[in-house]
């Protein structure tokens, strides 16, 4: 474990299995898990806190006017005001719900279609050019089309978010399936696995890391598409708060919306990270 340059060796992140001397010693010394978690969180907070300090300093020094960049305190006040009006939680709640639903739908479709196109040469030839083209259609461009087809209700919003979540999962699954260890797939085939059983027994477990990198990108993209989705006739949600504050020149609320999107985005991502760790322990 020559970790001299601060470059992590594989062993350092090895959750399962091999625990050599040092780890055993630690294990004997008691459960430092909680403390380690705290320390980790503290280190992770360094950069955000530094950014916050920088923000506070620039506004205090008057580099930007209050409308250009309100002070952190003003943003907190704007948040407090929304809380007092009982609106903040509705914004957060409805957006989170939309993102999660859209993410689940889009992610599931991405997994299914990515598997199909990744494994069937026919589906690949037939579908991947079209899917590749649709991938580059911006979220904002979908808005008028979706309004046309699905009107302005919740369906069109969820569809747009699902579209956003679909592509990262589709792409990563589709590309990763091509590179599953051939020897393992061959072993599976030699033992009579084929089609869906081969997929679920060998191919999908083998790409669990790739699936999760697709899912994490999909979740992030679902949040990105939320703003476009909430341009579709909504009066609630963080995306709405963002555009509305922008239109009304409420920079403090605008920043509040950005910070909330970042924080909630990170929280949902962290939850997905927990699922990932579990899955990786199980499958990789």
């Amino acid at each position, binding site marked *: 474990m020559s970790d001299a340059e601060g470059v992590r060796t594989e062993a350092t992140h090895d959750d399962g299995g*091999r625990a050599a001397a040092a780890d055993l010693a630690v294990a004997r010394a008691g459960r430092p898990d909680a403390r380690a978690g705290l320390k980790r969180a503290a280190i992770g907070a360094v950069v955000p806190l530094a950014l916050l300090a920088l923000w506070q300093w620039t506004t205090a020094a008057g580099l930007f006017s209050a409308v250009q960049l309100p002070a952190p305190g003003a943003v907190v006040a704007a948040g407090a005001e929304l809380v007092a009006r009982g609106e903040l939680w509705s914004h957060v709640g409805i957006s989170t719900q939309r993102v999660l639903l859209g993410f689940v739908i889009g992610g599931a479709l991405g997994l299914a279609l990515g598997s199909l196109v990744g494994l069937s040469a026919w589906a690949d030839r037939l579908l991947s050019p079209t899917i590749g083209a649709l991938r580059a259609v911006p979220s904002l461009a979908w808005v008028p089309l979706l309004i046309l087809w699905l009107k302005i209700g919740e369906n069109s919003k969820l569809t747009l978010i699902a579209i956003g979540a679909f592509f990262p999962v589709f792409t990563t699954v589709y590309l990763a399936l091509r590179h599953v260890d051939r*020897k393992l797939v061959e*072993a599976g085939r*030699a*033992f009579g696995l084929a089609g869906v059983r081969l997929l679920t027994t*060998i191919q999908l477990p083998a790409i669990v890391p790739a699936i999760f990198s697709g899912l994490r990108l999909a979740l992030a993209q679902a949040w990105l598409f939320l703003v476009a989705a909430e341009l579709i006739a909504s009066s609630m949600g963080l995306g709405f708060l963002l555009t509305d504050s922008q239109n009304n020149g409420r920079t403090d609320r605008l920043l509040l919306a950005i910070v909330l999107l970042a924080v909630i985005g990170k929280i949902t991502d962290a939850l997905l990270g927990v699922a990932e760790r579990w899955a990786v322990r*199980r499958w990789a």
Partner: protein
Amino acid sequence: MSSSAVATLSAPRAGTTRAASLEFRAVGQAFAARRGSRAEKGAHDAVTRVLRDVHLTLVPGEIVALLGPSGSGKSTLLRIAAGLDTPAEGELLVDGTPSTGISERCAVGFQEPRLAPWLSVQENVALGLPRTTDRREGQASVERLLHLVGLDHCAGYRPAEISGGMAQRASLARALARRPGVLLLDEPFGALDALTRMKMQDLLLRVHEAEPTTVLLVTHDVDEALQLADRVVVLGSDHGIPGARVKHVLEVPGARPRDRDDAALVGLRRTLLTTLGVDTHHH
């Protein structure tokens, strides 16, 4: 590792899997040189011939050992038998009918263990079970097999947590779990110490006795071939002509278990080593 365990292993479904015959007819195999690789540059031909005109018939229940120098095409022939590759020339017959694609009736023990890293040893062995196996019955036979290959204490370990020899035994157990008509084994005992190797050879023979299946066994150990096989087949190429073919076929006399010091075997051993190019008097 009792005989009774082996018997139990076979008992519940005895007779369902009948040993099959296996016939290679004028089989040849060639590989395209990798595009863009350096190998291609100097080569006149973009195709490397590995096997040519291989004729070989295994009767049901027979054990045939396949010997040959490293890189001579033993694994390639086994892959063809398993239906994993289609031969470039000739054809493969299983039970008299031409076979393409993977046959349900074959089981393969690959040269490398090829265990799925995310499955426990036990789950990996269970992969070998025939698809129709009843859940409970399957679990029981996996447990018996793990016991037989001496891995019962680490059924729940992942492949990364077991030693090379243990992985090889798990791979053997997976192939046996299939209870196939044809058992194809690629150096199944290569990574085992002397004692474990003997135990595993023993196990193979007992399984074969309880439920006689056709076995094609690749090995690089002449003694092993002589201990286990009904016939020994040596692959090799003629000087200057690319592609290996069957150079020798030897019937091994005597019923198993055989005595290593039997004069006939000692003679055969010498013949085989000479065929393989080993000077048995030096060293």
